[in-house]
């Protein structure tokens, strides 16, 4: 029986969709059978990020309205074996789907897939309620900004009241140089406020923007730090018993990196 994971955040623009695409791609790379569901009806993006927009014939609303079979709405990814997408409808709104329909769909998909990863829309309204309805566990995405952390706190509370225990945190777009200067919240500050475990820290990386615009998850890019962070996160999801060390986010290259290698990390 597969596991249903919702990726949520409350605040918009923190990287839910990017994380969903990369975690899905990463899990399928580890040999898991994965389906992604975009529940952001009316503002769909996941299909664009995966470069599958032009293959959409049926969508989530068609599935729940029984206009097509679930299998017909599954879009096979073009690069990753065993990765599928159920896209959101673009010309409808969140009220086109109900939480009970989502539970029914998740339970059906659970039979055929190892992981069902749900991309949640921003906000705490109907779309959020739909997204979390069928979920077993949640990954809360936040960035090191007070507003995003505040919203993540609200979301964690809502998840717990909906019976989703122990959500884990994914801290996205961290810039270690800013943290060092004291200009950005550090990981410990965030974890102290939110009091949950974190599943990974993804550095801010220009490669993300490049790969998103190309419609290819960054996880496939072996040179990208963000890609490495996502690879670690997916291993932690797929093999919870394994101990995967957290990524060293120190900048490796450049003069500063060289100094550090030679003289050791004293003050930097």
């Amino acid at each position, binding site marked *: 029986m597969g596991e249903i994971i919702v990726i949520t955040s409350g605040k918009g623009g923190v990287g839910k969709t990017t994380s969903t695409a990369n975690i899905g791609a990463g899990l399928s790379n580890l040999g898991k059978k994965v389906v992604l569901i975009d529940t952001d009806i009316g503002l769909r993006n996941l299909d664009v990020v995966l470069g599958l927009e032009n293959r959409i014939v049926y969508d989530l609303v068609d599935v729940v309205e029984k206009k097509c079979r679930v299998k017909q709405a599954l879009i096979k990814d073009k690069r990753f074996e065993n990765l599928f997408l159920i896209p959101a409808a*673009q010309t409808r709104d969140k009220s086109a789907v109900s939480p009970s329909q989502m539970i029914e769909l998740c339970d059906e998909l659970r039979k055929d897939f190892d992981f069902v990863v749900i991309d949640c829309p921003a906000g705490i309204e109907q779309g959020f309620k739909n997204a979390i309805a069928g979920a077993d566990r949640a990954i809360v995405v936040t960035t090191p900004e007070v507003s995003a952390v505040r919203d993540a706190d609200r979301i964690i509370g809502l998840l717990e009241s909906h019976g989703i225990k122990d959500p884990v945190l994914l801290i996205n777009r961290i810039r270690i140089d800013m943290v060092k200067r004291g200009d950005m919240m550090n990981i410990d500050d965030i974890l102290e406020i939110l009091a949950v475990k974190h599943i990974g820290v993804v550095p801010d990386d220009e490669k993300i923007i490049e790969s998103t615009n190309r419609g290819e998850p960054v996880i496939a890019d072996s040179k990208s730090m963000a890609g490495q962070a996502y690879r670690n996160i997916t291993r932690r999801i797929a093999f919870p018993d394994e101990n995967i060390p957290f990524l060293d986010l120190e900048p490796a290259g450049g003069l500063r990196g060289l100094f550090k290698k030679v003289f050791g990390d004293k003050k930097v």
Partner: protein
Amino acid sequence: MSRDSVVFKGTATGLVLELDPAADIDDILVTMEQKMLAAARFFKGAILDVAYRGRELTPEQEALVLDLLHRKSGARIRKLTREQELPPASIISQKDPQSAQRDLRPAHNDVPSKPPQQLKNQPVQEQMLLDPPEKEEITRFHKGTLRSGQRISSPGHVVVLGDVNPGAEIVAAGNILVMGVIRGLVHAGSEGNRDAVVTAIRLKPMQLRIADIITRPPENLENDFFTAYETARVKNETIVIEETGK
């Protein structure tokens, strides 16, 4: 039946039922049903205020008529009232001022008069209601860019003066003409007509469908050469794009 017990007339906001004072209610209901079945596609999806005139209806009879309208017209009926409650200026369907049916004209005379040829026979509006045009003749016209999430559908053709952006959709049983760039999804001949075509200044669709055939452009499409317009049509079971006016 020498004379119809019900005549349908269009107004700016809805529909007027002209009832024969001599006919009984059952006869009226049967005639209404027949007419609505014949014109079902015309009413479909419309939102109508319906008024009646010619005779009085008891509240029970009114309920019967309303129920029938709800069930058979395919339109959403906002209300059913006696005619005088509708503002007279909203009546489009006027009778010939010179005819004997002068009493049926709206009370105000400041309604613009119609060209002579339309006054001779039945008013044009009424003709349309009784004999709906072939659905292919209906054209939906959209002025401005069609943006993501916007959707236009038509039982006939669609004309857009502007672009069709990614995430926007046009579905037409007939042809589609876009005076701009198509970047979204378009579906012509949606009810199975493979002769339908899609024409646009630039065709860069996310997905293009004609009847039951679905295509998408090749992954790395770079064709920014100039054409006056491009037309997609079905040839030998596949959708091909023709450039015109190079």
